[in-house]
């Protein structure tokens, strides 16, 4: 549990726009260890998604350094070190669920037999066994998002980057998926970076909560969760949970003090 997976030092990212520079990220220092579940929470424009995209090599930092598994994000991306789950499931309508999960595997050039075995395994992980031959439109929004998580898991990346994956789903489905995600994390021992808007979601899921504030995007607080690893849904009513949630809220409010 001590191996460093992500290490960012003095990381800054400034977008040059027509209205002048926008400081999306400023002086980010952060370390994520293997097997951690880290949530990034903050208002829009605080750079949480941008930071996830920097880790994924979808954006380049303008200053500072960042390593993923000890190498640059670009090398990490090319060695397929992470699976990325977007806010929308982004399944291809012309492919079946199995076909969608095979998509990255085809791109990576795995054998057909290997592909089939992996599809069966990850569908079991996200509880979608039996839906291989269905098309995305035949599944509910929550099931589609589970399929998209299965797709990110299929090629055995150690890191899972999730950008508000349940943001578009309703509360009840969201609770259910949160519970499942924790079980999945326990089973696979992956390192997860998770962007969210929701305080309860962040507290419920994480071992570490990174509270961010906007203009410039920076880290306001890093909270190590004291909750036990095994978390039933009703842990959210415990005083310990509420205390952490309170601290997150304080951190968010501090970041907002000037506007």
């Amino acid at each position, binding site marked *: 549990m001590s191996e460093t997976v992500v290490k960012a030092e003095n990381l800054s990212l400034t977008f040059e726009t027509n209205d002048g520079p926008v400081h999306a990220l400023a002086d980010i220092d952060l370390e994520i260890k293997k097997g951690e579940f880290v949530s990034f929470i903050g208002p829009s424009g605080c750079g949480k998604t941008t930071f996830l*995209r920097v880790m*994924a*090599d*979808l954006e380049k930092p303008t200053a500072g350094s960042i390593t993923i598994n000890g190498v640059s994000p670009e090398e990490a*991306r*090319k060695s*397929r070190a*992470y*699976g*990325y789950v*977007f*806010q*929308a499931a*982004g399944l*291809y*309508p*012309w492919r079946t669920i199995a076909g969608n999960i095979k*998509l*990255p595997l*085809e*791109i*990576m050039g795995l054998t057909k037999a290997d592909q089939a075995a992996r599809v069966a395994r990850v569908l079991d992980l996200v509880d979608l066994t039996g839906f291989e031959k269905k*098309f*995305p*439109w035949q599944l509910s929004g929550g099931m589609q998002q589970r399929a998209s998580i299965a797709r990110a898991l299929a*090629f055995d990346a150690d890191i899972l980057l999730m950008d508000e994956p349940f943001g578009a789903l309703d509360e009840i489905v969201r609770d259910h998926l949160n519970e499942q995600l924790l079980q999945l994390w326990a089973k696979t021992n992956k390192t997860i970076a998770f962007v969210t808007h929701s305080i309860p979601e962040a507290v419920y899921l994480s071992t570490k909560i990174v509270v961010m504030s906007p203009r410039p995007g920076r880290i306001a607080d890093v909270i190590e969760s004291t909750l036990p690893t095994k978390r039933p849904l009703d842990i959210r009513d415990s005083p310990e949970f509420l205390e952490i949630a309170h601290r997150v809220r304080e951190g968010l409010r501090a970041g907002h003090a000037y506007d």
Partner: protein
Amino acid sequence: MRSILPILTVVLAIFVLWYGMAVKLNAPWAYDKAKRADVTLSFSEMVADTWSQNKPRLPAPHQVTREIWKTTGAMIAKGKAFSKRSLIYHGWVTLSATSLGFVMGTMLGIFLAIGIVHNRAMDMSVMPWVIASQTIPILAIAPMVIVVLNAIGISGLIPKAVISMYLSFFPVVVGMVKGLRAPDHMQLDQMATWHASRVQVFWKLRLPSSMPYLFTSLKIAMAASLIGAIVGELPTGAQGGLGARMLTGSYYGQTIQIWSALISAAVLAAVLVGIIGIIQNITLKRMGMAR
């Protein structure tokens, strides 16, 4: 049944208008004939005459129908379906040039679109030429294409197909550029996270995403191909094809022949576009992209 009624109403309106215009346009000639023969025409005699002239300004629908039947069904009955007087023969000549031109135009259009989407230099340089090409009247280009190709020993089907291609590649380029760019940022980012090559992105994402755009373009391209083929038949000395029928018809004032060729071309276009529509429905339904 409810959709049949409006369609029939429109068809009826067209026929009423058509017969009415036939009376109006052909009446002077009817009166002229009567005057020279020194007889006076009653209204009903005049109307009957305007609908049965040999070389009317505007032939009535039943005259056109009779002419079409004489040159198609009746020819088949006589076992002369491919004689030079048969519209089936001329329709076939036009159809073969249309089809070849359509296939060539579609290929050219798709290749140009692929280049434009993947290569910045092509993106900046090709599109203005593509648009410029369509601003030149096809009637000005067609004779040059025939003459130039003839000079290097190519004649017959190919020059007409080239003219057809010239008209039909344009909608395919425009549609496919839009279609191949249809995948959004998220889908392209997703491909990047898997370290997919451009070739993989093309085959697995861009091409399937472009299908709805492709079919829409193909329908327009098919109609344009037919126009190209007909225009291509005009400067070749009217050897064959629906365009040739129109041209010889106009040489000899055979308005009925012109109109029957015109109607045949319209029916041919409707059938060809309809076939693409059916393929479109089946394909998009199977791809889960039907609207």
